[in-house]
């Protein structure tokens, strides 16, 4: 069965495990504006959004409607973009955007996850997710050995040798920890 409804008819998850990020929100919006909608979101029987809350929010702000496809999960659904060829700039950017937005837009909500784990007897570590020292990381525990997964992200800036030395000198004056130095200079702690 298929039905088209307004985005407002879908309900955002008030206990979302993902807080999202500013950068991720920007990329999701850019992706929809430039490439239009990609793979689906996931909702439950009462139109509560299970996965894709941020996508729905961005799509809603851009005026998209929602085509609802009912299923019991025994078949896979494929959204077919009849206007796209993967071997084109738009096709490749769509593949890139799908991976990149998911990566950048994830910031675990530890409290929501812990509450759900307690209420429904879910062990997040069996899904590769654990929290240590209040820092969200996906760490080996339980049945799945995922090794150590680092959610941190690395900024890489290419410089000439002279520029590199100058940058290091400037940062060290502020703080011997270069990451902290740049954050202080940019006003992160202001």
């Amino acid at each position: 069965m298929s039905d088209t409804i307004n985005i407002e008819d879908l309900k955002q998850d008030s206990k979302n495990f993902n807080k999202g990020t500013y950068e991720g929100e920007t990329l999701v919006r850019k992706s929809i504006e430039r490439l239009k909608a990609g793979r689906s979101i996931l909702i439950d029987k009462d139109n509560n959004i299970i996965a894709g809350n941020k996508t729905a929010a961005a799509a809603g702000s851009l005026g998209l409607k929602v085509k609802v496809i009912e299923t019991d999960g025994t078949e896979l659904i494929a959204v077919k973009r009849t206007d796209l060829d993967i071997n084109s700039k738009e096709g490749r950017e769509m593949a890139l955007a799908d991976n990149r937005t998911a990566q950048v837009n994830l910031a675990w909500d530890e409290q929501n996850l812990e509450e759900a784990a307690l209420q429904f007897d879910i062990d997040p570590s069996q899904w590769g997710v654990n929290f240590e020292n209040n820092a969200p990381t996906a760490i080996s525990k339980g049945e799945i050995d995922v090794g150590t997964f680092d959610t941190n992200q690395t900024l890489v800036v290419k410089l000439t040798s002279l520029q590199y030395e100058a940058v290091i000198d400037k940062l060290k004056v502020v703080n011997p920890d270069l990451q902290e130095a740049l954050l202080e200079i940019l006003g992160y702690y202001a």
Partner: protein
Amino acid sequence: MEQEKQIHTEVVDIDDLIQDDHNFNKGTEAGAELMDRSLKELGAGRSILIDKHGNIIAGNKTQLAAIKAGIKKVRIIETTGDELVAVKRTDVDLDSEKGRKMALADNATNQVNLEWDEMELANAAKDFDIDMNEWDMALPDIADPDEQPTTEAKDVKELKLVFTPEQYSFVLSALRKYGDDFTHSLLQILNINE
């Protein structure tokens, strides 16, 4: 192929969909295990995305896991992207063990199963003129496979700074105020001549 009436859908064999042999995501062993578990325990969740020829744009790993989980059919929903598709699991309540596990699995598998293929990224950037900066992908050290090392290139050093996701977002936003070239931005901010 079975045609369903009134709606633009068709059902095909899962093997009919074509894997992307230039996938940007190599995937991980742990991610594959999570995906296998998710599909076997919870059934299919979000859709995958294919192009007009049946090539998988997003969800290559999901197709493989679905096959392992015994899923044989794929329902195709045609669109030009002007509307968002929502897969509605009529058997699931978000506020249940299954619903919450699906929410967890969606985020966790995305996180654990991503390992960029930098060579494929570099090739696509070159072949399709994709500006990786626009997707915040200026960061990886992507080698141009056709580019020979030059004397000038040997003088290039990389400054690598590791941040939490929130810090990283903040830093990128701050750098971008000075332009998309982060080298230029950083030098401007630190008042260093280029």
